[in-house]
C-alpha cells in the first residue's frame, strides 16, 4: 500500500436501506475506498450516540451513519430520530474539538449503492486531508499533558496579551 494515511471509518448501516445499498454497490462491482468498515444495525434510529463516541475513542478516524431517506424508513421514522441525535451530537463534538467531517450522515436507499459508495470515497478523502484522529494517542496519549506541544503556542498567545 502507498505510504499515504489510510483513514479508518466505522459505518453504521441500517439493515433495510443502506446496508443493502452497500450490498448493491458490491454486487454492481462499484469500486470505492476500502476504508469504511460496516456495522449492521436494524435502523439508523438504533445508533446510540455512545456508539459514535466509542468508535472515536477506539481509534476510528471517522464515523458514517447511513439510513433510509426520510419518509422511507422501514420503521416509519427511526431515521428522523437518528438525524435529531446526529445534529445535537455534532454540535457537542464540535465542543470536543472533533472536526465536522469526521462524523457524517447519509441517506441511501437500497437502490442507491452508488450514493453510498461515493459518500465513502468523499468522506475518506476529507478525513485523509484532516489526518489521523487516533484519540488515545493524540488526545489522551500525551499522558497528563504537561508537555502538550500542540497547546504550547497558546502560551505565547497568552503571554503577549
Amino acid at each position: 500500500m502507498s505510504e499515504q494515511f489510510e483513514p479508518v471509518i466505522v459505518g453504521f448501516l441500517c439493515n433495510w436501506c443502506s446496508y443493502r445499498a452497500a450490498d448493491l454497490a458490491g454486487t454492481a462491482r462499484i469500486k470505492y475506498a476500502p476504508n469504511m468498515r460496516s456495522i449492521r444495525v436494524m435502523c439508523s434510529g438504533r445508533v446510540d450516540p455512545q456508539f459514535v463516541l466509542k468508535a472515536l475513542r477506539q481509534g476510528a478516524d471517522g464515523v458514517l451513519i447511513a439510513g433510509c431517506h426520510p419518509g422511507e424508513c422501514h420503521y416509519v421514522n427511526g431515521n428522523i430520530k437518528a438525524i435529531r441525535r446526529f445534529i445535537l451530537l455534532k454540535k457537542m463534538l464540535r465542543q470536543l474539538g472533533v472536526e465536522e467531517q469526521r462524523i457524517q450522515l447519509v441517506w441511501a436507499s437500497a437502490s442507491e449503492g452508488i450514493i453510498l459508495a461515493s459518500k465513502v470515497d468523499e468522506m475518506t478523502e476529507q478525513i485523509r486531508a484532516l489526518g489521523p484522529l487516533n484519540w488515545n494517542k493524540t488526545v489522551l496519549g500525551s499522558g497528563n499533558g504537561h508537555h502538550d506541544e500542540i497547546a504550547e503556542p497558546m502560551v505565547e498567545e497568552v503571554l503577549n496579551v
Partner: protein
Amino acid sequence: MSEKPKLAMYWSASCGGCEISVLNIHEHILTVDEVFDIAFFPCIADFKVKDVEGYPDGYIDVCLFNGAIRNSEGEEMAHLLRKKSKFMVAYGSCAYEGCIPALSNLTSKEATFNTVYFDNPSIDNPNHILPQEVTQMPEGELTLPAFWHTVKALDQVIDVDYYLPGCPPEPPQIWAVLQVIVGALLEGKPLPPKGSMVGHTGVAVCEECPLEKSEKTITRFYRPYEIVPEPGICLLEQGIVCNGPATVGGCGALCPQVGMGCRGCYGPLPGVEDQGGKMLSAIASVIGAGEAGMEEHEIEQQIEDVVATLADPAGTFYRFSMAHSLLQRAKINGNGKGE
C-alpha cells in the same frame, strides 16, 4: 483505642463540600468518632504528609478520597494513600468521575491559566505572572505541583475499591455506606464486591422525583433564567434540561423539586458507559421537530433551530462525568476548541 480502625479522608481537586458532607451526617459523626481513629484528615485534624509516609502499608483501614486528580500533588497523594490504605473509596463525584474540575478537559491547561491568571474581570496581573513549577528565590528554590493538562478521576491513576457518587454524597447514603464498612470491620459482615458503586438507588433520579411526567416533545430549550417552570410538572417537558433520566438516584431528587433541572452529579446508571452520550441521545430523541415526509433540508433546518436553543451541550451533559466519559477530554487543535 489503638484497636480502632483507622479512617483517612483526603482532599484533592475539589471544593471541600465532601468534607462538609461527612460532618453533615449529624449525630452519626459521633459514632464515626467512636468507631474510628482519624489517621489523616487535613480538613479537620492537623496531620502532615510525612505522618502518612510514616505509617506502615495498609495501616489505614478506610480512606475516603475526594477530589479529582488535577496536578502532580493529587497524583502523588493518591498513590501514597493507596499504599497505606486497605479500602480506597472514591468519595464524591470529583474522585469518582472528575466532576466540575474535569470540565476544564474541554479546554487546554494554557487556556485555563489564561482565564485564571489573565483574562478575567476580577484579575489584576499587570506583569503577567504565571505560577511556575520551580522558582528560584534568594531563600532558595520554591516548587509548585505540576498542573496536568487533563483532569482525571481517581481510578484513572490508582486502583479503587468502592465508589460513592454525589456532589456531595447525601448524608443518608454516606451513613449507609459507613455502616456497611463498620459492620465489616467490627463484625466481619460481608462487603459489597470490590469495585462496586455504593450509596445509590440503582434507578434513575426520575424514580425519586415527584414531578408529574408524561410523553415528551421539546420544541425549544430554556436556560434556567429564561423561564419560570410550571410547578409540579417534569422540567424536561418544559424545555429545561434535566439530567435526571440519565443519572442514578440516591440524592432524593432534591434539585428538580426546587425547579432546577438535575445537574447529573450522581453520574450514569450502572452499566452505562457514557452519561453524556446517553442523555444527549434521550433529549435529541424527543425534540419536536422534523417529520417523515418533509423535505430533507427542511427537517435538518427545523432540528437545527431547536438545537440552537440548547447552549453548551458538552458542559451540560458532561457536567460531572467528563473524566469518565468515552472521549474524556477535548481535542485541542480540532476545529471546535473552546466553544
